């Protein structure tokens, strides 16, 4: 009986855990323990769902017992089980980490609020991923967004407030664009269910209204996923948020938005509409190429490493959009694979920065001189994550770049190949700056000596770093998931998912 309820449990567990977490406002530690427990159980549920999907194919779950399209349904298929896994997996690592980090960065009175927000954010992201209903997706999107704004605003710097506000404005504009798009689609088809939409949209042909809906949805989702040049909210938001929040959001939020983009472009509107009628690739490819180059260069000049990583995130999102824009199975697999891999690497990098922040109170590059000796494990993990961003072999980044370049070569798009490689080199430069500061520069005279971060930070950090190496060395698992999802998406032009 329980196994049939898994899709609901996936979201309901953290969602209903949040009020309990909130009720423990006097006892932040218990609040944290509860949140951690729930994040683990969400991860467990995701794994079980993965097994179910592998064995039995797509799972559908009707809320309230009302069959789709009348009720709201959850759908778990090859594509989103991958995202579920990565979101809950990152959560399962970041939540345990957050306790120690939060002690340093957030007032005790607010800690349980922070954990509640994180839990809500997790629930929202999982819900977006699993939702089979266009409007339900919006509601869950808002849950995750609101809790994200909250988490960001809890940063120690006052600029966290403005960052959060900026994100709130842009995020809400994005969400409103999404509901405009969904509204027009509903107007044209009379349904909100994604599978149903997918079967009905082809009947509309190339109606102007559906084209406008498409435009609004792409722009709205683009805002959420920080598609260049709609990314302006992202660097500040990631840079000033509390460390645990940065790590969690950076590793998951934009990935989920990319998933939503893939869902809309491929399975709801279908390959034919998106790429042959709307030619969306001619938006994605130039935009992402520009994003990759421009933001990578901007990242080079950042003093705050968290900010640098944030810019790098925009570039990495560019890779994913580029993969989508290649319009072939390899490209899409690369995008999905990178979605998985980037979560791992950015998670590790931000966790490392959290550990640095825990010890030295900031993440400026010049405060990190000599840290390689003082915090060897933290910096080693950072290097692993950094190598992954660069795309050095045996790290996850290499695998996704490999497949992405392969996709570009299949199209014969050599300039794109060049762009990817040039961007890797720029990435090498900005990672190298940190490595040089940490390992080559001496600790300034008179600076107090720093010890290694506590184990409660190091263990989660190294879990992710190790995952980077493991999935870089053995990408069979992630690649198979990504590839089969990509294949299904390309073949699903007519029959929905």
């Amino acid at each position: 009986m329980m196994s049939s309820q898994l899709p609901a449990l996936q979201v309901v567990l953290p969602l209903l855990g949040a009020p309990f977490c909130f009720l423990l406002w006097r006892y932040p530690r218990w609040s944290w323990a509860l949140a951690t427990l729930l994040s683990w159980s969400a991860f467990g549920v995701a794994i079980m769902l993965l097994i179910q999907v592998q064995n039995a194919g797509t799972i559908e779950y009707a809320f309230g017992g009302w069959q789709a399209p009348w009720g709201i349904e959850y759908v778990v298929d090859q594509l989103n089980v991958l995202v579920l896994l990565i979101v809950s997996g990152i959560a399962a690592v970041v939540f345990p980490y957050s306790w120690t980090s939060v002690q340093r960065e957030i007032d005790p009175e607010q800690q349980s609020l922070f954990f509640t927000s994180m839990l809500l954010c997790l629930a929202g992201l999982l819900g977006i991923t699993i939702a089979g209903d266009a409007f339900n997706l919006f509601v869950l999107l808002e849950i995750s967004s609101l809790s994200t704004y909250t988490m960001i605003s809890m940063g120690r710097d006052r600029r966290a407030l403005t960052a959060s506000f900026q994100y709130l404005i842009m995020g809400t504009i994005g969400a409103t664009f999404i509901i405009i798009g969904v509204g027009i689609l509903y107007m044209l088809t009379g349904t909100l269910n994604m599978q149903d939409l997918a079967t009905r949209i082809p009947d509309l042909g190339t109606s102007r209204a559906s084209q406008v809906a498409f435009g609004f949805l792409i722009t709205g989702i683009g805002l959420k996923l920080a598609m260049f040049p709609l990314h302006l909210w992202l660097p500040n938001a990631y840079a000033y948020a509390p460390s645990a929040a940065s790590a969690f959001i950076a590793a998951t939020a934009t990935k989920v938005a990319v998933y939503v983009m893939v869902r809309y472009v491929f399975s709801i509107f279908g390959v034919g509409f998106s790429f042959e009628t709307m030619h969306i690739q001619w938006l994605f490819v130039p935009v992402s190429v520009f994003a990759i180059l421009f933001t990578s260069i901007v990242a080079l000049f950042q003093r705050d490493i968290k900010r640098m990583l944030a810019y790098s995130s925009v570039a990495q999102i560019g890779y994913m959009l580029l993969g989508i824009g290649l319009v072939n199975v390899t490209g899409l697999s690369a995008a999905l694979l990178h979605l998985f891999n980037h979560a791992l690497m950015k998670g590790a990098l931000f966790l490392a920065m959290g550990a640095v922040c825990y010890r030295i109170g900031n993440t400026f590059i010049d405060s990190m001189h000599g840290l390689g000796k003082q915090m060897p494990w933290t910096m080693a993990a950072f290097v692993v994550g950094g190598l992954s961003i660069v795309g050095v072999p045996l790290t996850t980044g290499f695998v996704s770049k490999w497949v992405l370049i392969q996709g570009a070569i299949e199209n014969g798009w050599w300039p794109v190949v060049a762009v990817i490689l040039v961007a890797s080199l720029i990435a090498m430069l900005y990672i190298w700056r940190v490595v040089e500061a940490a390992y080559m520069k001496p600790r300034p005279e008179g600076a107090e000596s720093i010890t290694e971060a506590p184990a409660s930070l190091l263990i989660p950090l190294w879990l992710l770093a190790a995952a980077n190496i493991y999935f870089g060395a053995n990408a069979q698992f992630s690649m198979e998931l990504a590839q089969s999802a990509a294949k299904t998406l390309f073949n699903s032009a007519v029959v929905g998912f």
Partner: protein
Amino acid sequence: MLLCEQQTPRGLNQLPRKKTEMELAVNITLLLMLCATVFAVVKLQSLFAIVMLFGIYSLLSAMIFVALDAVDVAFTEAAVGAGISTVLMLATLVTTGRWKKKPERSGLLPLFVVTITGAALVWGTLDMPEYGNPANPAHHHVADRYIAESPTEIGIPNMVTSVLASYRGFDTLGEVIVVFTALVGVLSLLQVRRPRTFARKQDNRPDTHRRRPYPVLQVVALIMMPFIIVFALYVQFHGDFGPGGGFQAGVIFAVAFILYTLTYGLDDSLALTPLPALKILAAGGVIIYGGTGVVSMLLGGNFLDYNVLAANPVSGQHIGIIVIELGVGITVASVLITVFYAFVTRAERNRAGEKQVDLPNKAD
């Protein structure tokens, strides 16, 4: 005119039906007023005026919702837009000052973006189904079933409530969670505190500026309190039959306490509704709602499947809807009250003349 309308005998349900042209005229007038209001908002510099006009805007759109047959939405829009949002914005103005410092930045780029977006939308409307046509695809497929089946399947006359609470019950759970999330956010940003704890000492402004109690208002408010609360309960439980439901009832309930706070001050109000209780209620409402879902799961149905709550599916639906609406009401009321308190606390602090700049990295 008078005579030709009066052909049928009259009871509550036999009033003369339909004056579509007149509906249209009302609709168009309201829309034009909306446009005027919006342009005034764009033009004006006084934030206070802007907020007041936003209240009008919201009331007008609520009126339009009534004209478009969306009574539940009208209810909610008035409660939220003209009510809560406006009050919160006003409270914000106390802290921020009510003047925009400068005119807008050169509006060319925004104007361009807006024009493009608007033009795209207008272009898109050319292929959209005609407004109000019963044959539009939007009205068939899914909606048909709600209209045809919900009175028997769910057993309550208000189809909006049926869809809201049962067919799309999970959306509504999400909605409650959103409200709850907002509470978490607001509490993390602002604190609720009794103003007594602030220094009230240096209130040496001229006498005319000093706050004095308004006995008239206090009396009126006191008379209205029980009335409002009864009305809230009515809306809560009448939601199955007419416009209303948990959310609207929650707002009305909150409005009662907002009124009380406005007339009697935060101190008295906090004594009436202590903060911990509000917090527990806010979380409790969510738990009641979610708990219903969990119970239905334990009874063998899917999440939020009320059919299994009783032997008879229809009564199961009834029980389920009443319980979850209760959860919604509790959460919404307590969240809104708490949020309002948080805003007022900040406004009071401002009044108490505290320094404007605090440690940038400390949550106060």
